[in-house]
């Protein structure tokens, strides 16, 4: 979250509400799921860490607003974040271990676990595709949904490989 907030400040200084609006727009339908207070909490932590600076700006008919700006250290962090190639979750390792344990202990049938998991992922995929159809094709949020759908599709393919493997093992 910290890196995301800082990167949203990289173009120009902004106040908390503007940042939240930018983030919501980029996320599309997922934006509604953001915790409203999170942006402000993150900003105050970044301020304490010296990565952003806050300035009070007087407004004629409203209370003063706080506008945040990246510090040099903050800007350096944004560059590092953009270049960082860490990727979230390479493989659903927990599910893999579930299958191994289920087979070894006979506490559950691995093929049944694969079936149940596949149905759940297909239900998620169904919902994602419904959401994607409602999004205008050129909205930034549609790309996020597309990414999530492709990833689920890959996970479902992997489940098919798991199924083949465990069906073979069980029939031996």
């Amino acid at each position, binding site marked *: *979250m*910290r890196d*995301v907030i800082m990167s949203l400040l990289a173009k120009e200084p902004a106040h908390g509400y503007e940042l939240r609006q930018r983030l919501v727009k980029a*996320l599309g*339908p*997922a*934006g*509604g*799921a*953001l915790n409203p207070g*999170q942006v402000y*909490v*993150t900003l105050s*932590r970044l301020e304490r860490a010296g990565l952003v600076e806050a300035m009070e700006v007087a407004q004629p008919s409203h209370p003063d607003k706080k506008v945040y700006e990246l510090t040099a250290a903050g800007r350096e962090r944004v560059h590092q974040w953009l270049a960082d190639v860490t990727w979230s979750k390479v493989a659903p390792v927990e599910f893999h271990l579930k299958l191994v344990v289920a087979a070894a202990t006979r506490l559950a049938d691995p093929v049944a676990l694969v*079936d149940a998991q*596949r*149905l*759940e*992922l*297909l*239900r*998620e*995929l*169904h*919902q*994602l*595709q*419904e*959401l994607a*159809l409602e999004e205008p094709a050129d909205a930034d949020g549609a790309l*996020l*949904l597309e990414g*999530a*759908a492709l990833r*689920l*599709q890959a996970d*479902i*393919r992997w489940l*098919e490989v798991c*199924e*083949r493997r465990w069906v073979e093992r069980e029939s031996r």
Partner: protein
Amino acid sequence: MSEVIDARGLVRRYPADGPPVRAVDGVDLVVEAGETVSVMGPSGCGKSTLLHLLGGLERPDAGELRLGGRRVDGLSETQWAIFRRRSVGFVFQAFHLVDELTAVENVELPALLLGVSRRDARRRAMGLLERLAVAERAGHLPDRLSGGEQQRVAVARALINEPLVVLADEPTGNLDSRATGDILKLFAELRQARQTLLIVTHDARVASTADRLLTMRDGTIVAQTRLGSGASVAGILASLADLGGDG
């Protein structure tokens, strides 16, 4: 709601070296009017054979089949051909368009065979091609069309006689991801228009457009689920918006 497909105890055997292989081994399946059902399963699980049985392209060795309330498992080849023309639309992986006919001629052919006037058939065909966003390709021969365009023409052809049910066998099997996306949207529209549709596919994205999903293994249906239930939209969106803590 009325039942469009009502299959009981369908069995289809293929000769083999040893005992005959039971490609479809006792399938019960009811599909309601306006429902979209997808069938998934590993290669050789019998899903394509099931679709062939439901559309009369193959005959069951046992079991009963009713389409739109009519008992059809005992129909002769000719009776099936006539029934199919009016009541079943097919979409195949390899499109199966007639090479010598233009797109619009392919689409109107099933209507002409039913005795619809040339003028009405053309009007209906053009209407469908427009709806499927291939109207500007109406005068082209199939080999001048992309795979995605050919499949949309094939879907238009399947719909022209307003069939009871459309049966689609791996409809995106020959398409790239972009054309697959177009077909996904199209199926979602058909679902919203309450067109009864049964899709056999190994593509999870295609399968997940349906209201209901069946999983087949070794000739039988081993699981089924309603796709619109379960997974909560709020949960999915929350995990998409999860940018980690603020630490």
